[in-house]
């Protein structure tokens, strides 16, 4: 199975080997560095987890596959990626040059409340607002 970024709700960027991911729908944002950022880049480029695990062969293969499965499950649970059976990577996946460490997703929830602050008005059939509590 291959995956893609869950756009447009999710936006991400990689800078100096670190990834930042923002889920505009949930109000959560995330960071990863090192191996995690590399795996994230490979996943959203359309490489399947088996192929990614093969490029992390310097570590114990069974451990890598287990770590990646857990990582992909967490990314899916946070709705950062979605399955995309049609993804085809534009470039071959190079071997990971760093030292293997289980990919870790750092989760930040301090902004969640910003999406819940405003008592948005509801709009009646004619397009005029009234407070949501009415």
């Amino acid at each position, binding site marked *: 199975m291959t995956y893609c970024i869950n*756009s*447009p709700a999710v*936006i991400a*960027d990689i*800078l*100096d080997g*670190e990834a*930042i991911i*923002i889920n*505009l729908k949930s*109000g959560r*944002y995330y*960071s990863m560095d090192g191996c995690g950022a590399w795996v994230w880049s490979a996943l959203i480029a359309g490489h399947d987890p088996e192929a990614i695990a093969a490029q992390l062969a310097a570590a114990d293969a069974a451990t890598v596959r287990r770590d990646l499965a857990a990582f992909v499950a967490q990314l899916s649970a946070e709705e950062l990626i979605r399955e995309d059976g049609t993804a085809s990577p534009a470039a071959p996946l190079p071997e990971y040059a760093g030292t293997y460490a289980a990919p870790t997703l750092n989760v*930040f929830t*301090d*902004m969640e409340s*910003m*999406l819940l602050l*405003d*008592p*948005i*008005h509801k*709009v009646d059939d*004619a*397009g*005029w*607002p009234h407070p949501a509590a009415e």
Partner: protein
Amino acid sequence: MDSSHPAGVRVTTGSEASAITTYFAALGAAFDRASAQHQQTALFSVGGQRWLVRHAGRQWGTRYLRAITHLRLPASDPIEPDLTIDIWDQAETGQPLPRPVWDWGRRLPHSYHSEFSADRCAALVYTGLYVLVDRAARHAWVWHPDGMSLPQWDFAAPLRDLIELWFKPSALIRVHAGAVATDGGGCLIVGASGSGKSTTTIACLRAGLRYLGDDYVLIDPEQQRIYSLYNSGKLTPDTLTHFPEFAPHVSNHDSIAEFKAILYFDTLFPDQMVVSAPLKAIFIPTVTHQPETQIAPVSAMTALQALAPSTLFQASDPSAADFGKISRMVRGAGAHRLLAGTDFDHLTAQVKEHLRHG
């Protein structure tokens, strides 16, 4: 969907498009009626553009535009404005907004949006403020049923949704940051609520640095330039104790606990208000409780993490393109942790020195 339309644009039928055209034509007539008794006009510099703002009535419009008065240009400026904005409210003028003829297309966290074409769109903000934009005509309309009832923070940062809508197709983006400047250049001061962002920004203003804002500014990542939006500043009751001389000038004594203390600095520091400055540095304050302040370089990712989430979660309709603008900006500017000490003289001297010599 017709692939010739940008993503998010509703494809209207011929009769709907005709109804929208008729509606936008009626906006002009409605504003003419609202402003028949009294109209005020002023020209402003916003993000390097000239905005001609006309508001009907004497009360709400004047108060609503208070926070951008430092951006005023001479009225005699002969250059055609980039945008004309007509503002009125019903409570003061008795003139309603023409009744919308569309179903609101998208419910966003803080507003409803409808995009009728690449040029025309409308937003209904949670406060009840309507914003309507006709890009081709370079014209916008802002209306509220009772403008004086808007929350205090709307007066401290007016026209936020219009600014976001108007600049969305451009290189510019409104970011959640304070900004001050010296002759050597300007800096963004970024961080979440409670990080010391406003305290640092306002301490720098008091120490003589030029002021571009304490909460929202526009940035142009292509030119690496900061543009001021508001002359206002907000301080919590606790941080206001660091600036006792400002207490008599707080504009909302009866709602400080709810909205923070809101100050308008253009009258207190008129010579330090600036419209724009080149971006030289990004500071991420961390309060240390030590007397002295230190500045330490950090990665661009640290700056992106401090700036992007709070900016995008406050935006009406954030997108990957907006994220890209912020990302380009932080890649081009030096980012630093400002280990902010309790000695404000030392803190502001460090910021000045860094901007002067890097």
